[in-house]
Structure formats: C-alpha cells, structure tokens
C-alpha cells in the first residue's frame, strides 16, 4: 500500500499498489552476494593488518644477507614494492587495483598473483575432487553401516578406525604411505604431477588427467593418474575418518524417529527404509560437514602437498607466508574466503533439495 497526494490541500488518496515480488532464490542470492563482498573486503583489511603486525620485514625475507647490508639495494626493493609508503596508502593502492581485478605482483615469483592462482588452483582441485568423491562414497556407506549396527562389533570397529584416522597426523600418514606403496611395493610414484620424461598436456582445465585425456595423450593421462594415487589416498583416509563420525551420529538420530519405526512397522523393506527415509533425512548435517571438508581441501593441504611435491595452493600459501609476500598472501586469503563462501552457498542450496521442509521455511 502507498499513500499519495493528489495536489489539493488536505486531499489524500490511498491506492493499492501491485506488490513487487522478488523470487525468493534471487533475493537469497543477492543477499549472499552482498555478504560475500563485505566478507572479502573484511578479509583484505584483516590480512593486510595481520601481515604488517606480525614480526618480520619482507625485505629480510626476500633479499640475501649480503644484499641486506647494502642500503641502496634495500631502498630499491622497498621502492619497487611500495614498502616505502605509509601503510594506509599501501592498502588503498591495493584496494584500487583489486577493484580493477588486479591482485598485484608476487614478490616471490615475479608473476601476477592471479596468474599464480590460475596455475596452482587446478592442481589442488585435481586432488580435492577425487578425494571428495571417494570420501563421500566410503564415508556415507561405512557411517550408515555403523549406525545400523549400533553397539555391535562392526560399529566399534568403525568408531575406532575413525578415531585413529582423525588422530593421525597427515605428514606421518603421507610418509608411511610413501614408504609402503612407493618404497616397499613400488606400486606408485613418489611425488610430483608427472614423471620426468613427460611434458604437461596443453592447458585447458589445468588438471593434467583431464587435459591429457582431452588432448588424446593417454600415456600422459595414465601417468598423471598414477601420480594422484598416493596423495589422494592420504587425503581420502583423513576425510573419510571425519565424515564417518558425522554420518553415523546423524543416522543414529534419524533411526530414533517415529516415522522410521512406523516405516518398519508397515513392513517396508529395509532397503527402502534406509534409502528413502534414513539416508535422505540424515544427509543434511553430512552435507554441511562435507562442504567444509571440501572447502578445506580446496584451500590447500600444505603438508601433504609438500611431501608429495604437489604444486598446489597449499604450497603456494606456505611459501608466500614464509616470504611475507603480501600480495600473494592477500590473493590466497581472498581465494580461500571465496571458496568457503561458494561452498557454503552450495550447501545451503543443497539443503533445500535434500529436505523440502527447509525449502519451505
């Protein structure tokens, strides 16, 4: 309803206007977009502040010891990277460039940060995607099994296994897996993305297995797949351990519901009860934790990437941090924030698909 004046003193006409209805999904997405923009801005402020607060001078991290003794070299470095400007000017300069899509130049690689991310993100995705697919399949299956067999030997076995998995340091597991599968059994390569005799395939997605297949280079694709084996095995083991516990507890909760008992009482086959009633209702919390696990994988796994010589986001982030390379650190931070935001958005949308009650609310 709107109230308008018709031009005459004291005369007021009230008319019914057409209600403007925005599609709920569009409104939801617009709201999330605004939050994301604010979040990313916040990330730049916090990261910029933290990098400049922590002890350590980028000059020390980037120049040789002898060069540090030469004031002209130090001054040239500061001027080149804008480190001679006040902090607020450095930030505004960065922000101005950011709005133009320029993430700056990495001090450690000398390349545009965006180019670096385009180079390293696909390598991490090549690890994260098969890891997540395998972890979801195994974690959901094993978690459901443990829930259905609650309190029995199978359940105890799964719970102990999950606890062990969660308690295992990734670097230790990586070394053990390397020792067994590479050193002892010779079943898998030790590290890297390709054997030394192969050249990377023409870049389309940046994922060697996919790009090699697209180019018809099947020997390269096969070799790239072999190099995925051990890091994916380690990451899958760790992710499965996380998922199994969530799946089990979620399914146990649903198993207590009256409608499950009613379904059994009606004589529905166990397969139907598990698949239609238990699995679907229990998936909501599983989707949440899966989303977080996937975002974590996409953000890079420093230790695993390091041990397997995998040139992903994790290694790039580590090198950036140790070199106090501010443009790269900011670039990685923005990427990670964006990944978490997008994954959470996807998870929210999946809620509605999995459980209609959430969609309605």
């Amino acid at each position, binding site marked *: 309803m709107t109230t308008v004046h018709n031009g005459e003193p004291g005369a007021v006409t009230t008319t019914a206007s057409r209600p403007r209805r925005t599609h709920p999904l569009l409104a939801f997405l617009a709201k999330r977009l605004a939050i994301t923009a604010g979040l990313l801005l916040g990330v730049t402020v916090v990261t910029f502040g933290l990098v400049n607060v922590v002890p350590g001078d980028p000059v*020390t991290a980037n120049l040789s010891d002898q060069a540090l003794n030469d004031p002209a070299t130090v001054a040239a470095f500061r001027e080149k990277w804008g480190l001679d400007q006040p902090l607020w000017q450095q930030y505004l300069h960065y922000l101005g460039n950011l709005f133009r899509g320029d993430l700056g130049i990495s001090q450690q690689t000398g390349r545009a940060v965006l180019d670096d991310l385009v180079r390293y993100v696909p390598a991490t995705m090549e690890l994260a995607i098969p890891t997540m697919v395998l972890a979801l399949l195994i974690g959901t299956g094993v978690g459901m099994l443990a829930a259905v067999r609650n309190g029995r030997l199978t359940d105890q076995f799964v719970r102990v296994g999950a606890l062990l998995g969660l308690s295992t340091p990734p670097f230790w597991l990586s070394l053990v897996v390397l020792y067994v599968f590479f050193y002892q059994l010779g079943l898998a390569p*030790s*590290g890297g993305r390709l054997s030394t005799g192969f050249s990377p395939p023409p870049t389309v997605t940046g994922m060697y297995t996919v790009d090699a297949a697209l180019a018809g280079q099947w020997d390269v694709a096969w070799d790239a797949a072999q190099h995925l084996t051990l890091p994916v095995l380690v990451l899958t083991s760790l992710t499965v351990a996380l998922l199994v516990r969530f799946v089990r507890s979620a399914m146990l909760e649903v198993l207590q519901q009256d409608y499950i008992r009613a379904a059994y009482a009606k004589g529905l086959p166990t397969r139907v009860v598990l698949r239609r009633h238990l699995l679907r209702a229990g998936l909501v919390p599983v989707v949440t934790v899966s989303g977080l696990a996937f975002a974590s994988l996409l953000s890079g796994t420093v230790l695993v990437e390091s041990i397997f010589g995998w040139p992903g986001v994790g290694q790039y982030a580590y090198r950036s941090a140790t070199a106090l390379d501010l443009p790269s650190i900011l670039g990685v931070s923005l990427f990670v924030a964006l990944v978490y935001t997008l994954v959470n958005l996807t998870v929210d949308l999946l809620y509605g698909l999995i459980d209609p009650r959430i969609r309605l609310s």
Partner: protein
Amino acid sequence: MSVSPRRLRAGALALAALAIISTTACTAGGSGGNANGGAATTLTVNTSFVLKTLDPGRVYEATGLTAVHALYDTLLTFEGSDVGTPVPALAESYETSADAKTFTFKLRSGVTFSDGSPLTADDVVFSLNRLKNIKGSPAVTVSELSVSKTDDSTVVVTSATPNPNVPVVLAMPSTGVLNAKVAQDNGAKDGEDAAQGDTAQQYLDTNSIGSGPYVLKSYEPESQVVLEANPNYWGDKPQFERVVLRNMDVQTQKLTMQRAESAEISLDISGKLLDGLPASLQTSGVQDTVYFLFLNADPAVSAVTSNPKFNQALRAAIDYQGIAALYGEGAAPGAGLVAPAFPGTLPESEASTRDVAKAKALLAEAGLTNPTVTFNYPAITYKGVDLGTVATKVQGDAAEAGITLELNPQPLTTFLDEMRGGKSPLGFTPQSLNYPVADSLINNMAPGQATALRSGWTVERAEPAIVAAGEKVTETLDLAARATAMQEWQRLMNQSSPYIVLASNSSTVVATADLTGADYSAAGWQVDVAAVGRK
C-alpha cells in the same frame, strides 16, 4: 527385495575396496616416479626447491643457481669441485693488472646464443651493467665494478678498489651473459634507473636467452624446471638431452634414491640422512657451511654477552666434537669462520676444544654467577640438521659450566629481523658463502662492518690487532698470501670476536652408480648438470 544390514555391510566393504582398487591397483607396474617416455636421455635432479627466479640478474637461491649455470655462460667458470682456480668459459683468456684493479678479457670467437645470433662484447657489457644496476640480491658482488669494451671481442672490467677476486666473481651464475637485444626487447634495462625500470624478470623466468649448454623448456617454480640441450651450443654437447630439476621433500628424496636405478641425482641428502643409503650410490660432498654462535657485544643489549670473559667462558664450555657428531658424515668441529671448502680455511688440527674447568674459572673472573641469556635460533632444518637439536646440545654444554641458556626458537624471518636489528643477545645460525671467496667475511664480519654491527661489534669494541689483521687481508693482492692472512685473521677472531664457530658441515650430491661428473661444487650451482654423463 529387502536389504539386510549384512548386505549393507558387504556393500560398504565392496565400495571401500573398489575405491582402494581404483586408486592403487591402477598403478601396478609403476616404477617409482621415473617411468617415462624418453627417460634414457633424461637426467633427473631431485631437490627441495629454493627458487624464486631464473633471471641471472636476480638469482641467488640454490635451485635457481643450478639452473642458471646451465642456461647462461659466464666469462669464467669452475670445473668439478674445484673453486680455487677459475677457468676460461666465454673468455678464452684474461689478464690482471698489477694493482688488481683492471681485468681484460678476450672473448672466445664463434660463440652464439641459443637462437643462433653471435655473442659479442656488447652483450657482456649490457649483462654486467644490468646486474649491477637492477640492484637485486646478487648486485652487491659487482657494486664496485665497472665494465666497458675495447672492441667486439675484448671486455675490460675495472674495480674501484684492488680486488684480486674479480675473476671469481665473474664465474658466478648471476654474471651470466644475456642476449642484449632480446633482453631489451622484453623490458631489460642496464642504466642507472634499471632498479625501477627493468621489467624483464617475468620473461626471463620462462625464456632463456643465453649461450649455455641448455635452454629452458619449462619453469614451474613449485614443481619442476625442465632444461633441454641447446642445439647451438658452442662447446661440447652435454650427454643428457633433457634435465629435470624436480621439487622433492628431503625425506622423499632419500626414499627415491634408494629405489633409483639410473640417471638420478639428489642434492639435499647430507649428514645423518646419508646413513642407510645403498652402497651402490655415489656421493660427492664438500664442507662448505659453518655454524656459529654470535654474542652481542653491546652492553645495552646484554651486560652478560658483552662481557669478554663470558665470551671466552662460553667458548671453553662447548663440546665441539659432540656437536660435529650431531651433523653426521662430512662434519667437523669448528676451526674458523672460513669453511674447509674455501681458500684460507684453518686446518682441522686447530679446531676449538672443550675445557669446562677453564669455563668456570673465566665465569668467576667475570664476576658472573649463574648467568642467564636468551638464546635465539631459527626453528628450521638446514642441510639435514635440525638447528633445535644443536641448540639444545649447546644449552646442555653451557649448563655444565654454570651458564643458563634459555632456548628461543623463532620463525626464520623473525630471527633474521631480530638479528638484523641488533637485538639478539645470543644467536645461532648457519653460514654459506654467496661466492667462493672468503673475503666477503672480512667485508661483513670484521669489526664495524654491517654484520658485525648487528652484534654490536664496533671498531672501538674490538681488539686493534683484529682490525689490523682484517685490513692486511684486503691489502694483500697475492692470492696465496691472502689466504695465509685470512688464517691469521681467523685465529685472532677465535680469541675475542663475538663469533664462536661450532662446526662445519658438508653439502652432498648423491647420484646413481651409472653417472659420471656428479661432483658437488661450492661455487653456488651445487652440480654442473652439463658435466654429468654416463659411464
């Protein structure tokens, strides 16, 4: 049809098995990472990458130096493990003036860049001027030099001060000669404004424009650098058509070398990590790194460490033999600041020894009872040795003499910052030379020099004899006499400088049995990949 829990369990197990099979069984027959097409002509070099750039004017990290040495020729070079005598490379001969200020290089004829264009004196002048003026990390090695040409095949390098080591400097990879025209076309500058105006790094990271035995095929700074033989190389062709420098964690290097059968090298397996390697592998190592403590001589920073008697007490308290044992094979107790790999080192017979009673007596003379000092060190593993282990050993040794050291492990950058700011009362650090001439120690660590000032060691706080000994080194132009003078300087430094040398340690090249020429070089490039061949 109904599904029982038993069938569900069976299904879950089958799924798990499928996943495992899909990720592991598919690799059956894999050979450990070196199975490849055309592997017969590929040399694999495993190393934990320390790599920022392949631009000769900016390179100073170990991995970059290995690659740049293979891509760009220098006027002079070193052969094998020898770093005492520079030998001709682009320069077929050179002359040194009597005052060691002017060096005249006659260029070899018929040398071409990898694109086939001829290499001339103009390219040399441009490359050296660029190195100096872009003011990257290696620029300090040529900051006192100026360069000119007298004709297309003669280059004259002039030093502002007498410097008999200029030929050594001109063998370093950072002095590699670029194709000046191509470099300029891609943003390279050699003028005095080059520090801001030169934009060639990105181009030089992905393209090589030198005359070396290899050309750059691909550069992935997080994973691998691939070199291919230069078809236009003027010298002897390298035996391997392809060299892959592969980024690999040091533990993985050890596992890899234990399975490697041919054409493979590792650069980071040293010290204790050498234990357990198969006897079939060959190793080549040189003691080129020293580890030392530095005590702050400024009373305002620490009244304890600036006390000369405390300095001597701590020297006497340390078990140098025990510390060398922590480093494993190829290590030795500390003798002097110059590592055994370089001219002017002190003989092992002059290594420091422990005397706890003397340490206690010196503490009493100093009037210090149970002194406590914060002991900073970088929390890193360097060349296979955890510095924390060594620091703990020093702490234990000092405690036996009544000195309490409070260990303060720090992130590397924090440690360097604090050290550079002159705030560390006591610290511990490794040291490798940027180029194989120990003179740089005088320029940095003698009283009043930049590194010495970080420890509060001014000329006024130093013994005049040490100042004089340092000056004598730089004034001596004959290299053999200079090495002797350097030894004298170190003996005096061992008596009262703020530095206590703990041990020296080797860097090692580990290679498969089929290779020749896989010699470690302390010249910076670790191994000359072009000199590596097959038996």
